[in-house]
């Protein structure tokens, strides 16, 4: 009896601590995940009652027909926006490489290095929408700072944000400026500081040059950090691009900067809840698959290196 009471008391105490969190978790996370899956099988527009439409949303989103030997996607916009998203993610390797180079350059304790770290980190502490707004101004074709600087190199810059060709690279460049000295650089600095000095001393005695020291000590020792950064960047990248596009181009020109998250936002605004939920779930499956794949493939590699 005493034992039973103790167990009951433990259960009550445990759930009393959990209660505030679990109520919010159920209401705003757990049940909505299930609900959005359900909604993705309907045509709910919040005006008429929802109808069950089976896989129709997913069929429209992902499927295609072949007419006269030509592939015609049911929703060509989705594929276009998917391409835009992946294009913007093309900045990720440059960003990671830049963060690593910066971290290596600033991994010293001099006053100037500490101040430079602060300066490089500053954009990460700003408010993204405000940053994107100033970059829109910087990219102004007539009186913008960017084209003015390019003019010194004898380049006549294009109308960056109004060009279907240049708008995406312009957004990538902005993203690099924000991110290069940000969280990834800090993580790399932390990683660099954990590498034992002796490794480098031993390598120098053996006559290893700078490249060899990087290739055989720094890079392998930072592998867990790089792995973490790559995974986080991929997860963020697939969900990214909304704020930049909203503030700099409103998705234009001609939808050339609309990303998957932006497409979800648009469908929510158009009250196409079923379709929005379907895109969100496709995005989720995409992220899940890519993460799982990186974990399996990359995780093993790191184990080997360690």
């Amino acid at each position, binding site marked *: 009896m005493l034992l039973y009471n103790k167990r009951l008391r*433990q*259960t009550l*105490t*445990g*759930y009393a*601590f*959990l209660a*505030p*969190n*679990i109520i*919010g*978790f159920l209401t*705003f*996370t*757990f*049940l*909505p*995940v299930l*609900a*959005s899956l359900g*909604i993705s099988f309907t045509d709910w527009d*919040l005006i008429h009652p929802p109808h069950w439409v089976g896989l129709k949303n997913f069929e429209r989103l992902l499927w295609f027909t072949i007419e006269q030997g030509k592939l015609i996607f049911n929703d060509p916009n989705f594929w276009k926006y998917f391409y835009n998203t992946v294009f913007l993610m093309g900045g990720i390797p440059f960003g990671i490489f830049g963060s690593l180079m910066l971290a290596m350059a600033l991994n010293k304790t001099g006053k100037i290095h500490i101040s430079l770290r*602060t300066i*490089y980190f*500053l*954009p990460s*502490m*700003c*408010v*993204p*929408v*405000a*940053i994107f*707004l*100033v970059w829109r*101004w*910087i990219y102004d074709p*007539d*009186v913008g*700072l960017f084209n*003015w600087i390019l003019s010194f190199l004898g380049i006549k810059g294009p109308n960056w944000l109004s060009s279907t060709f240049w708008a995406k690279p312009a957004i990538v460049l902005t993203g690099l*400026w924000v991110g290069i000295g940000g969280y990834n650089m*800090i*993580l790399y600095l*932390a990683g660099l500081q954990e590498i034992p000095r002796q490794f480098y001393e031993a390598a120098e005695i053996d006559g290893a040059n700078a490249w060899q020291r990087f290739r055989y000590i720094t890079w392998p020792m930072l592998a867990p950090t790089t792995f973490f950064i790559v995974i986080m960047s991929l*997860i963020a990248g697939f*969900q990214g691009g909304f*704020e930049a596009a*909203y503030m700099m181009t409103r998705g234009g020109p001609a939808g050339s900067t609309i990303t998957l*998250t932006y497409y*979800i*936002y648009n469908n*929510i*605004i158009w009250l196409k809840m079923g379709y*929005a*939920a379907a895109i*969100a*779930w496709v995005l989720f499956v995409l*992220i*899940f698959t890519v993460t799982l794949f990186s974990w399996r493939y990359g995780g093993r590699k790191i184990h080997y290196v360690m």
Partner: protein
Amino acid sequence: MLLPLLWMLSTSLKTPENIFTFPPKLLPIPLNWQNYLDVWEAVPFARFYLNTVIVAVSVTAGQVATSSLAAYAFARLEFPGRDKVFFAYLATLMIPGAVTMIPVFILLRMIGWLNTYKALILPGMFSAYGTFLLRQFFLGIPTDIEDAARIDGCSAFGIYKNIILPLSKPALATLTIFTFLGAWRDFMWPLIVIDSPQKKTLTIGLAMFQGLHSTDWGLLMAASFLVMIPLILVFLFNQRFFIEGIKLAGLKA
């Protein structure tokens, strides 16, 4: 690296004639403070400020409280179903915000909570990630002190409040900083649930501002600068906390 930020400041301090010149004038001579005065008149900017502070403070306080309570239960208490519930939390960590956003939007719309503080605050007060972060930190605290306290008759809540929380200041500071930053910068969620200018936060207020004064760059840059300056100042005076926080969050996760 600083150029875009300085360019924002410089543009915001220029006279209208000096903004649209080519080649651009780097320095705002003569200085013109007018934009910083006009911002407050052009849109209800003071209101946006107040709204943002209310939302960010409430979300942060709520999240730190609910996350630390739950994290303590997951890290220290033993009760049936604990690990199953924790697994459910973990499983949701990778789910994109867009997935849950849609049903929550529909729910708030149905109960008439769009355009309210509740819509901005309540969903942000609970975080699986925050719970996870604090749990990992709590697990690293030695149990000796707690055992002694328990023998002396200290309750579970007493241990949480008097032992665990004071020993977890770095982790609590990290969660506070990142939650506050996140709430201050949040954009898509307020954009979806808020329409009325009276309830707008700074970020969506700035977007609205841009829609209304799309070519008044002096005014827009002054507004942008005002949106960012509190965060920049907090960062510059507490750098150490930020850097340690990133390492903590990165390494624990």
